[in-house]
């Protein structure tokens, strides 16, 4: 009985880890075409709204964040 229970727990544990690792990976694949930033309003910026199609030729680091 105890052995069965132990095996049961291990199985559950493995299943849990497997599903966690198996869930859709965060982020976007390296080499993929970078989607547009689609920003509504830019702050700390003067001039043409920044978008990837007018930043062609530049290396861009985008940080996704929130105020909270």
């Amino acid at each position: 009985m105890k052995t069965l229970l132990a095996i049961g727990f291990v199985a559950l544990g493995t299943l849990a880890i497997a599903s966690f690792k198996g869930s859709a990976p965060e982020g976007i694949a390296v080499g993929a075409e970078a989607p547009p930033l689609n920003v509504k309003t830019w702050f700390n910026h003067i001039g043409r709204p920044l978008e990837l199609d007018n930043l062609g030729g530049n290396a861009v680091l985008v940080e996704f964040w929130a105020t909270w």
Partner: protein
Amino acid sequence: MHDEFGSQGLVVVAVSDEDSKLVSDYLDSMGIQIPVGSGSTAGSAYGVKGIPHSVLIDPQGKVAWSGSPYSISKGAVKEALKGAKKRSTNFMAIPLETEVTGRLAAPAKSMAAGNPGKALSSLRAIEADAKSTAEEKTEAQTLIASIDEHVQLLNGQAESFVKARDVLKGLTVIDALAKEFAGAPIGDAAKTRAEAIRKDENLAKEIVAAEAFARAQEQASKLGSGKAKAKLQEVADKYKGTRAGDRATAMLRTKKN
């Protein structure tokens, strides 16, 4: 990242899906320098699940790296910077999408380098020159239209800044237009507008407050927490009711937490 690689041409931006008022208020209390975008819908397209999350994009528009901002690969950044052009932070610069040749190459280059005033003179000359081909005239007109469009954009932004009581910022743009287009109608209009703003009693108060705030921030950055707060409090008290005063107050509120 911006400090380390900014001078090498890395463009660093932050984007949020939140609305502009929320983001604007937050930025007022923070003193962030990089461009920040609000109302962005890109999160899901980039597979962002938890924030903050960073993505590095190479000069060909492909994803070079994706992950936590705390573990950005400097190697990936250096690699992405190879062959990357430096983006001019000069808001006068009008980068051109297509290659321009012949007589128009020089003014086009001036536009991209942030001298649209100089370009405009050359372009008007080409347009008026009887010896110019029809093609050259058409192309000159197209470039002139780009300059006008850009100037309109800058004027619009300058007025938005003034309206939002960010007067010093608005004047930065208007003064730059006055200087760049000195002698041309665009420049004259900008000069007149700048004078009117400076003569306006209320707007002038905003300018004085903004300058005091900038000085206080500069001093505060070199002082310990207590003295820094005191500097900001001085501005908050003395310039109550101005945008700078509000900003100083907002900054103090976050420093308390």
